[in-house]
């Protein structure tokens, strides 16, 4: 409901901006129309990750105002399915939270990565009487492995000096569906607590038997919301919408940082970007970095069959990387730091027909 309303507000805002631009004078007007022709006309189909879906839908409705003749659709079918559909040529580009592996059905060397936004994954909890919680990676790993089962465990107390913790049982909530959020969260634990975390990482992991699974971020958020003593990982926008308490996590520099968009952008800036523009902002360096920050990418083909599609894809993605970046904040995603943004724009030159 909220999201819908917000998207409507954004639409109205964009519409007003366009109107204002039109009213600005003849020169502006001709500028807009020549833009529209430059954007071309046609249809773009895409599918993939559900994590950035809220952002992509916002960008698509905003782009509709700029290029009314271009129809972009994005189906949030999940990263895995998105990659497969892209590999089969069913879609023009794909969204993915994870990198392309050999068995994903996308031939190596046939595509480029374009990072778009990043998002913090929160560790949200519900514990009556405790509004501020700090967790170090090892404690976090032990909670999610059910090695720590009570809130007044000495390990939690050590991270939270001076906070009185009740002896409530911990109910761990996780995703029951395969999810890029699970993948990034477990990758973070693998990176930050290598000697403690034993469950590996992936879209689905073998959680301990006493935990609770629920579908999608909203499902996990709901368990936390209604259960005293619950803790789980939820993406930032759902945690905000459900008004959950979020724990501050100890980052690589030893600082406890609460999830925020600034913290996520700092993590992206602190991450090492590889030549193919993939980067790993999980457990990134930097005093302000929020350590559980997840990247997300678009996959574009190196070579499109016809020039029009190539042009449409490039223009759309250019928009995502420029005018589309400020929209990210409205739906609680972190925009790219300018360095990576420039590299991503340069990546578009590799897309040809």
């Amino acid at each position, binding site marked *: 409901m909220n999201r819908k309303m917000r998207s409507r507000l954004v639409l109205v805002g964009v519409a007003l901006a366009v109107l204002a631009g039109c009213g600005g004078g003849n020169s502006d007007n001709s500028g807009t129309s020549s833009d529209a022709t430059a954007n071309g006309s046609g249809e773009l189909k895409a599918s993939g990750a559900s994590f950035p879906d809220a952002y992509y839908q916002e960008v698509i409705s905003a782009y509709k105002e700029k290029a009314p003749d271009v129809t972009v659709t994005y189906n949030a079918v999940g990263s895995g399915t998105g990659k497969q559909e892209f590999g089969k040529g069913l879609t023009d580009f794909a969204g993915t939270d994870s990198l392309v592996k050999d*068995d*994903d059905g996308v031939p190596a060397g046939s595509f480029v990565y374009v990072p778009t936004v990043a998002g913090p994954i929160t560790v949200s909890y519900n514990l009556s009487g405790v509004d501020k919680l700090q967790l170090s990676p090892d404690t976090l790993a032990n909670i999610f492995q059910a090695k720590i089962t009570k809130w007044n465990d000495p390990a939690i107390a050590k991270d939270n000096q001076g906070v009185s913790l009740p002896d409530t049982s911990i109910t761990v909530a996780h995703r*029951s569906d*395969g999810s890029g959020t699970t993948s990034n969260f477990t990758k973070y634990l693998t990176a930050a607590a290598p000697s403690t975390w034993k469950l590996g990482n*992936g879209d689905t*992991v073998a959680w301990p038997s006493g935990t*609770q699974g629920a*579908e999608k971020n909203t499902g996990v958020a*709901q368990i936390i919301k209604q*259960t005293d003593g619950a803790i789980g990982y939820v993406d930032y926008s759902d945690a905000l919408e459900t008004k959950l308490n979020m724990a501050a996590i100890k980052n690589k520099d030893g600082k406890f940082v609460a999830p925020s968009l600034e913290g996520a952008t700092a993590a992206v800036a602190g991450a090492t970007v590889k030549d193919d523009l993939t980067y790993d902002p999980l457990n990134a360096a930097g005093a302000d970095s929020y350590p559980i920050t997840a990247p997300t990418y678009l996959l574009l083909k190196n070579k499109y069959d016809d020039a029009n599609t190539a042009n449409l894809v490039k223009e759309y993605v250019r928009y995502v990387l420029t005018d589309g970046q400020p929209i990210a904040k409205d739906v609680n995603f972190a925009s790219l730091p300018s360095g990576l943004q420039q590299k991503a724009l340069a990546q578009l030159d590799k897309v040809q027909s």
Partner: protein
Amino acid sequence: MTTPTTQEEAARPALTSKSDGVRGERLFSWWTLATGLLVLAILALILITTTKQAWPAFQDMGLGFVTSSTWDPNPASGNPVFGALAFIYGTALSSLIALLIGVPISIGIALFLTELAPRRLRGSAVMVVDMLAAIPSVVFGLWGVLVLAPLLVHVYQWIHDVVAPVPGLNIIFGEPIGTGRSFMTAGIILAIMIVPIVTSISREVLSTVPQVNKDAAYALGATQWEMITGAVFPHSFGGLVGAVMLGLGRAMGETIAVSLVIGGATNLTPNVFAGGNSMAAVIVQQFGESTGTFTAALIGLGVVLFAMTVVVNLAARLVVRRAEIRVQGTAT
């Protein structure tokens, strides 16, 4: 006899064209044979294609697929492990709870409607029960998650505290999970979901008991309950088992509602207040993001579920046949 002699014969449809009738007869028998075979063919095709698609997982896991309770598609080291035992157990346990709760209620309603209820009440009572069947399962699931589970936690806690000193019971009614999403909650939701179908079939079955049998029981001085156990149940036992089996089939295959309320944990425990998962729920939860052997393993769950349903149905037929021999003295 070419001309109708009585009025009765005149009222019958004219069977003048003999060849037409024969052709119709042949067509009819072909049509019924074909539809009958079609069901078998569909069943066989489903079994063959799903088994074929699940084969990589069966091959990897061997018998471990049904005897191991480790389900780990992305282990920290080594190959993925797909052991479905915890999910088979979850399906069986939640369905069993559903039957234990749902069947007495359903048969009670059916008996009330056929034997006790005033005639004018019947229509509306039947309508209310049938309306339960019209509620989409996802609504039951959401109701279970939002309303029932948080309420039941307190009931579970109370039961757990009460039976704590009793050995055995304190294991079955163990420490409840904080969210209330458990085998028990899934069983209760399933019980509500199977009540309409079990009730309506039981009602049909019970209403076929001849009035003569009932009157005979009364004539021998039976009370109403004695009449029901002595005359109604023996006559309708087979049909009632059929009704229960249909309910069980629904319970074992139910997906969305169970997925929402059972807790989503890989858990093999006698504690009915703990969270678990069922085969159908796991398939719907994990299919979307699966690839390769993982997908095969999920389809494998479908094959196991299918096999389980067939075995349960065959066992039920056996029970019915035995019981009928015992009760009626003849094999029917």
